[in-house]
C-alpha cells in the first residue's frame, strides 16, 4: 500500500512548479519532504490532495486515482500552510466536521492534544495567533487518523517548547497508531531524528528519495587543515566543502580508500542538514 506519484508536472503559466516528479510514499513510515522555500513541496502536496490539478501525470492512492476521488481522498489529510477553514470556526467545530469527513477521526484524541498545547478549542481560528492557528490545524490532522497524513510546515509560528511538543506528539502518534506521516519543511535540523525516509525536492524535481540511513551512509565528512583535506580529497567524489579559517570540512560520497586516513584528519558521519545543504546547492537562503 502506498501513494504513487507518476511523472507529475504542474505549470503555472510559464513557471514549472513541479517538474515530472516520480516518487513513492509507503504506508506506516515517517517521511520528510525536504526542500527550500519555493522548491515545489506545497504544490506537490496540493496535487496529492486534489487541491490543485496537475498539468500532467497521475497520483495513485493505494492504486486509486487521487484526482476528484472521494474514496482515495478519505485516506489523505493535508495540513496546509494556507488557512482553509472558515475563520469563525473554532477547533471543537473543526474536529467535529473532520470526523464527518474522515470516519476514523478521534475527536477525544484531538481535544487531548489541544489541551497539551493549551489551545482554547472554543476560540475561532481567525482570532488565534499564527502559532495557535498552526496548532489547531495540527490537532485536526493528527485526530483525523488519515492513513496518509501530510503536514506542510507544521511548526510555523511555534516557539521552541511547542515545536518540541509537536515533534514528540508525531512520534507518539506514530508509535501508538502507525500510519504514514510526512513532514514537509525546510527546517531540517529539528526533524532529522524523526524521519525514516526523505524526499528531497529542488526546483520542482525530486533530487533524492531514500531512507535517512542509506542517505547518510553514502558518504562521510572529513575535517582537518585545508591542505591535508585537499590532498585527501584528490581522487574522491567531493560533494561540498566548508572552511573555517584554515580548517576545512569536506563532504565525500562513497567509501573508497577510507582506511588510509592520514594523521591530522578526522572522519565524521554526514548529517541530514549538511547533506541537504550540499545537495540543494549551496548555503545561500538556507537557514
Amino acid at each position: 500500500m502506498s501513494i504513487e506519484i507518476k511523472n507529475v508536472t504542474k505549470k503555472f503559466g510559464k513557471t514549472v512548479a513541479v517538474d515530472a516528479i516520480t516518487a513513492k510514499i509507503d504506508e506506516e513510515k515517517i517521511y520528510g519532504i525536504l526542500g527550500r522555500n519555493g522548491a515545489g513541496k506545497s504544490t506537490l502536496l496540493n496535487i496529492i490532495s486534489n487541491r490543485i490539478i496537475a498539468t500532467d501525470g497521475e497520483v495513485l492512492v493505494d492504486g486509486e486515482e487521487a484526482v476528484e476521488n472521494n474514496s482515495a481522498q478519505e485516506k489523505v489529510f493535508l495540513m496546509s500552510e494556507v488557512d482553509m477553514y472558515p475563520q469563525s470556526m473554532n477547533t471543537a467545530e473543526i474536529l467535529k466536521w473532520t470526523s464527518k469527513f474522515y470516519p476514523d477521526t478521534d475527536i477525544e484524541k484531538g481535544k487531548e492534544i489541544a489541551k497539551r498545547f493549551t489551545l482554547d478549542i472554543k476560540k475561532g481560528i481567525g482570532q488565534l495567533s499564527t502559532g495557535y492557528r498552526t496548532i489547531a490545524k495540527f490537532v485536526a490532522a493528527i485526530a483525523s487518523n488519515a492513513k496518509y497524513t501530510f503536514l506542510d510546515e507544521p511548526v510555523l509560528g511555534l516557539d521552541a517548547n511547542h515545536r518540541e511538543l509537536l515533534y514528540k506528539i508525531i512520534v507518539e502518534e506514530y508509535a501508538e497508531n502507525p500510519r504514514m506521516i510526512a513532514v514537509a519543511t525546510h527546517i531540517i535540523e529539528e526533524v532529522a531524528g524523526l524521519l525514516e525516509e526523505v524526499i528531497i525536492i529542488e526546483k520542482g524535481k525530486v533530487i533524492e528519495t531514500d531512507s535517512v540511513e542509506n542517505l547518510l551512509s553514502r558518504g562521510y565528512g572529513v575535517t582537518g587543515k585545508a591542505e591535508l583535506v585537499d590532498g585527501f580529497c584528490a581522487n574522491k567524489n567531493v560533494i561540498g566543502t566548508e572552511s573555517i579559517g584554515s580548517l576545512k570540512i569536506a563532504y565525500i560520497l562513497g567509501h573508497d580508500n577510507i582506511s588510509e586516513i592520514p594523521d591530522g584528519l578526522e572522519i565524521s558521519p554526514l548529517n541530514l542538514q549538511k547533506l541537504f545543504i550540499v545537495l540543494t546547492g549551496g548555503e545561500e537562503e538556507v537557514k
Partner: protein
Amino acid sequence: MKLKAAVLYRYEKYLKVIGLFAGLLIIPIIGALVATKKNNYPIFDRYSLYLAGICAVMSFVFGITSYKPIFKFFLQNGVSRQSTHASFILNLPVCVVLAAVECLIHNTVVLISNQMLSSANKPFTDAFADIFNYQGGVLKILVMHIIIESLAFMMLMSLGYLLSAVFSGMKHFYKVLVIAVLAVIIILSFILSAVTDSYISLGMPAWIAFILYFIFGGLGNFYLNHFISSMIILIILFTSISHLLIRKAIVRK
C-alpha cells in the same frame, strides 16, 4: 460519505441562519404590530412583500457565501469538486424552508394585524395569488405561495453562487473590468432606451421589459406556469455554468 457530510454541512450552516433570522424577526414584527394598533393602519397587509424581499436578498447572499469559503473548507476535507457542486444543488431545498418560514410568518402577522383592526374577517388572500390571478382554497394558495418563493429563492441562490464562482476564479483586474463593463451596459441601456424612445407603455427600458417577459410570460399579466418554467430554466442554467467553472477550480489566495 464525503458527499453526505458535505450536504449536512451546508444544511447545518443555512438552517442555523434561517432559524436565527426567524428569531430576530420577532422584534420588528412586534414593533409593526404595535404601530398597526396605534395608527389603526396595517403596516403588514396582505400585499406587503417586505419579508419576501428580505428573504430574496438573503437567498442571494446564501448563494454568494455557498461558494468560496465552503469550497476551501471542502478541499481541506478531501471533498471532490464534483461532490462540492452536487452538495450545493442538494442544498438548494433550504430555499423551501426559507419560503415556508416566510409564508408562515407573513400570513400569521397579516392575520394578527387584521384581527387587531376593525377590518376583521376579511376573506383570506395572498399577494402572489393576486399577482398570478390564482384561484383556490387557503391551503392551495399557501402551497402556491411557497412554491413560487422557493423557486425564486433557488434561482437567486444559484445566481449568487454563479457570480461568486465567476469572481473567485478571476484575477483582481478582470473582476474590476467585468463590473465596469456591466455598469456601462446598464447605464447605456437606460440612456439608449430613453434616446430611442423605446420605452414601452409601462415606462421601462426594453431590456427590463424583456427580462420581465421572459420571467413572467407577460408585462401586465403574469403567468404562473411560465414563471415556474422560467425559474427552472434559470436554475439549471446557473448551476450548469457554475459546474463548468468549479470543475477545474483552485483556491486563489
